[in-house]
Each structure stands twice: as structure tokens, then as C-alpha cells.
């Protein structure tokens, strides 16, 4: 019985960590920068494709491939930010929605042209395969790895954003662009940097999550709801929020699947519904000081 509990806890948390890894980039571009970037999944998908292609076609090992993919997508993020995104910083959220949907359409088509309609297989290194048996519980190695890796990323982000003024500057620039400039913040560079970081993280999430959220041209549309839920439940502009949100949703999802498999998705949505009714600004919100 207790091994079941451990299992649920572990699977829930590790699934939550997958949600976190794939969504945290959005909590930066959308939560911090205030850009309704529905195209977040595009960067995650490209990260996944780049990782897979480097591994399968060029034989690059997993971690170097992941790193290279992040760098490539970050660069792409920079370029897109300079060319396109920055034109819409001042636009209404509706225009941003339209813009990011356009990007999704384009990238879906391009991914299909280059990689075909099928999902891309990702061959993880041997040592991340299979499972470890721990006091009667079966623990898939990769999930354990994700749990550790995700914690490290979360800690790094927290140190980088909450403990420095970087995050405060970004929020200031988002809230009042003109005034932020007037106190000496180079908003242009700041946004480019932040956006690059957001896309880089998206790519990382895409590559790491590829095992569970399969990389195919439909990716940006298929998982958009997951990303949005995490950011909404976590709370805009917070760095810790999305982590808590992911873990809570991961746990709740896992527990309902185990306890009431018939319930299906209804319970997950009901759960999110209740969470948001309870705390409309998200779990960690900047609204309530």
C-alpha cells in the first residue's frame, strides 16, 4: 500500500516536472513579458526536432544535442524577436494572439515539410532507459532524471529572477515601457534577452519532454492548453508559481488516473476550475503582496 503511495507521489511529481519543463519558458515570455505567446510550443517543438535530428542523423549524443538545440533555438528566438515579436509589444493581446497563431500555422507547415507528418522517435541514452526498483516501487530512470534536472532548472531560475533585479526590470519594462526607459532601463536589449531565455527554455523542455510529449508537427497546437494552464494556475509574473502549479497538477492528474481511471479528463478540468476560482490570480501571484 505504501509503495503505491510512493509510486503515485513519484509519478505525479515527475509528470509535474515534465509540465514544468515544457511550460516554464512560457511563464517567462507570457508571465513576465506579458506577451500572449501562444506560439510557445513552436520553440519547444523546434527544440525537440533539433535534438532528435542531431542525434539521429549526425549521431550526436543526447546531452550535447540538447545543448546545441537550445542554443540554436535561442538564436532563432533572438532573430524572431528582433524581426517580428518586438513589433507587437505594444499591441493588444488580441493582435498578439493572432500573430502567434500565424507563427504556429507557419511552423506546423514547415515542420511537416522538413520532418514529415510522423512523430519523431527520440532514442535516449541507455543509462536513462528502464527502471530502478526502490523499496518495492518501480521507478523509471528517466522520470527520476527529469525530477532532478527540473529541480536544478527551477532553482537556477529562481536565483536568477527572484534574487536579482532582472525580473523586476522586466516587469517594470512590461508595465510601463516609457517610464522604464526613463529610469535607464534598456528595454530593447532586456526584452531580447528575456525572450531568448524563454525560447531557450522552451527548446530545453521540448527536447527533454520529447519522450512523453511526442515531437510532431501538431505539437504547438496539441499541448497549448497544458502550457496555458500551468502559467494561469501558477500566476502571471511569478517564477515559483509555475513550478508549484505543475507539481500540483501533475499530482492531481496522477492521483485521479490511479484512483478513478473512468473519470477521464473531466476531473483534471474540474480541478483546474476550482483552483482558478479559488485563486484567480494564480497560486503565487504578484497581486496579493
Amino acid at each position, binding site marked *: 500500500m505504501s509503495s503505491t503511495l510512493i509510486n503515485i507521489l513519484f509519478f505525479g511529481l515527475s509528470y509535474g516536472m515534465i509540465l514544468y519543463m515544457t511550460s516554464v519558458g512560457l511563464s517567462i515570455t507570457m508571465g513576465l513579458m506579458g506577451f500572449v505567446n501562444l506560439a510557445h510550443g513552436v520553440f519547444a517543438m523546434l527544440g525537440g526536432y533539433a535534438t532528435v535530428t542531431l542525434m539521429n542523423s549526425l549521431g550526436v549524443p543526447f546531452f550535447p544535442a540538447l545543448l546545441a538545440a537550445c542554443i540554436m533555438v535561442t538564436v532563432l528566438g533572438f532573430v524572431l524577436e528582433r524581426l517580428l515579436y518586438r513589433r507587437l509589444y505594444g499591441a493588444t493581446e488580441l493582435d498578439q*494572439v493572432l500573430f502567434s497563431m500565424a507563427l504556429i500555422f507557419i511552423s506546423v507547415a514547415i515542420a511537416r515539410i522538413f520532418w514529415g507528418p510522423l512523430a519523431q522517435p527520440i532514442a535516449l541514452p541507455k543509462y536513462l532507459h528502464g527502471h530502478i526498483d526502490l523499496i518495492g516501487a518501480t521507478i523509471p530512470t528517466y522520470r527520476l532524471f527529469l525530477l532532478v534536472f527540473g529541480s536544478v532548472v527551477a532553482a537556477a531560475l529562481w536565483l536568477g529572477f527572484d534574487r536579482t533585479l532582472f525580473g523586476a526590470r522586466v516587469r517594470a519594462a512590461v508595465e510601463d515601457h516609457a517610464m522604464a526607459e526613463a529610469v535607464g532601463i534598456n528595454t530593447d536589449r532586456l526584452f531580447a534577452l528575456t525572450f531568448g531565455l524563454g525560447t531557450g527554455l522552451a527548446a530545453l523542455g521540448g527536447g527533454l519532454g520529447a519522450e512523453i510529449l511526442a515531437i510532431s508537427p501538431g505539437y504547438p497546437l496539441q499541448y497549448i492548453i497544458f502550457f496555458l494552464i500551468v*502559467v494561469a494556475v501558477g500566476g502571471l509574473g511569478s517564477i515559483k508559481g509555475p513550478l508549484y502549479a505543475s507539481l500540483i497538477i501533475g499530482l492531481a492528474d496522477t492521483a485521479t488516473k490511479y484512483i478513478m481511471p473512468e473519470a477521464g479528463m473531466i476531473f483534471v478540468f*474540474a480541478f483546474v476550475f476550482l483552483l482558478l476560482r479559488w485563486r484567480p490570480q494564480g497560486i503565487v501571484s504578484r497581486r496579493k503582496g
Partner: protein
Amino acid sequence: MTRPTDTALPGKGMPAIPASKRWLEAVPWLLALGTYAAAPQYAPLLTQIFVMILFAMSLDLLVGYTGIVTLGHAAQFGTGAYVAGILAARGWITDPTMTAVIAMVAAGCIGLFFGSLMLRTKGLAFLMLSVASGMFLYEIANKATGITGGDDGLQGVVFSPLLGLWEFDFRGTTAFFYSFVMLFLTFIFLRRVVNSPFGWSLRGLRENDLRMSAIGCHNYRRRLTAYTIASTLAGLAGAVQAQCTGFVALNSLSFELSGAVLIMLILGGSGRLYGAMFGVPIYMFAQDYLAKRDPTNWFLWQGIILLILVLFARGGVLSLAERGFHACCRRRPG
């Protein structure tokens, strides 16, 4: 001139169409009829466009006028479609107008229910709640295979002839005129609504809801009323859809549909009812054309067109048209 004229156009600080140019308002309707006269084989596409315009207009009341951005509007659309469809499939009521009315009531109730749960929140939280509300109904319809047919869709939906006179034929003639008239009636209704004190107060809510409550408006009730009206009309759109295609499937409740209609609305320009009339046809004609030219890669072209529009026609196609229109007006002497 301090008093705005009665028109569907005044959007976010946009000037209205001058009274002398009011005949312009008839153009889209004549255009629609003209297209049909010239190419009756396009009737099915036109019908679907009308349904989507109707749906998008109901959404505009929320998004454009009240400032409520929802990604769950299909919940009401699907409710309307399923209610009409089930009534007909079971053979309980097959008269199109009767089923449409019942579908509207049902969708209005669903809107009232979800709205009352969600409308105390705003922004992203509301957006996600609306997504959840749509998903909710979707999952329920998916599970209730006995009633809805699950994802096989609802079978055997046959409506009796419209007003006892016109059969819904496979060429889609009846469907075309039926959806046209329904759209027209809805438009007239919505136009009245947005120009009424109620409609103005919705714009007030959009602009500054805290101020609205300070001048004595019960924001929540006001929003809920708007939400219920929009839901009712979305239900009508769903019912018309069910009647014109004789089929109802789960996708009428889907997140994708909610997203697509929002995109079409933004594309046309929100906050003036005509936005839907521009956005939907442009989107759907482009989609139809591109998908036929290149069934596998039309997404690419559609994306590129959207991108160009959003970069160069901020605020929707209608904004662009308006800017051009007013530039012309100004240039002309007198």
C-alpha cells in the same frame, strides 16, 4: 458633433461612418446574395460562412464590446447544435424554427450557468476557466455516447421542411437562405444591443470596470447578461449549423472551434459587428482556396497571410479599411 450616430462601427475610439455613407452598410448583404446568384454551387461554403459569422458576432459582443476574451465559446455553440440535433434525431421536434428556439434557450442556460461561475474572474484566469468550461462539455458529450453518439457523431439528424415549405436539400439552397435570414436577424438584433445604453455600458466595462461600479453598475450582473445573450446567439449559430449540415459531432464543442472563431474575429477586427463579416469570409475563403490548391501545405500560406495582416493591418482588416476610408473622406474637398 458630440452625439455618435447609430451604427455598428464605432469601435475603440474609431469614428463612425458618416450618415451620408450609410448605404455602405447594405454592401456586404448584397455581396453575399450576389455571390450566390453568380455561383450557386458555392452555397454550402456560403452557408458555413454565415454560420461562422453569426457565431463570431456573438463572440464579438464579449470580446470586442465587453472585453471578455473567451476560448470556450464553442461550449454554447455545441450545446445549441446538440440540442437541435438530438431533438431532431430522436424525432421529438423536427421543426427547424422550434428546435432553434429551444436550442437558444438551452445554450443561454448553459451560458448563464458557466458565466455565473466564471465571470467574477478576469484576464488569464477567465480565459483558462472558459477553456475548461468548453472541455467540460466536450468530455461530457464524449462520455454520453448513448445521447450524443460520442465521437461517432450524432446519427440520423433529419429536420422537417422549413416552415413546412422548403426541404433541406443536398444542394444547400434552403440552407443558404435560412442561414442568411438568421444571420440578418441576428445582426439587426445585435446592432440594437450595442447601440443601446446597455451596449454602451459594456464598452464602459471594457474600458474601466472599476469606474463602472463607481457609477452604479453591477458589473457582474451586467457581464453575466452580456454573456448570456452571447451564449444564446452562439446556440442559435450551433442550431443553424446542425440544421444546415444535418449532422452534429464533437468538434462543435471543441477548443479548436473556439480558437478558430476567435482568430476569425480578430482578423476582421473586434469591437464593431462588421469585423466578423470581414474576418470570417476572408479566413474561410482563403482556407477553402488554399486547401484546394495545396491540401498538404495550405497551413503555411494561411499562416503567412495572417502574419502579413497582423503586421500591417493591426486591429483587423476592418481597421485597415476604416483607415483607408477615412483617409479618402478627408481628402475629398467639402
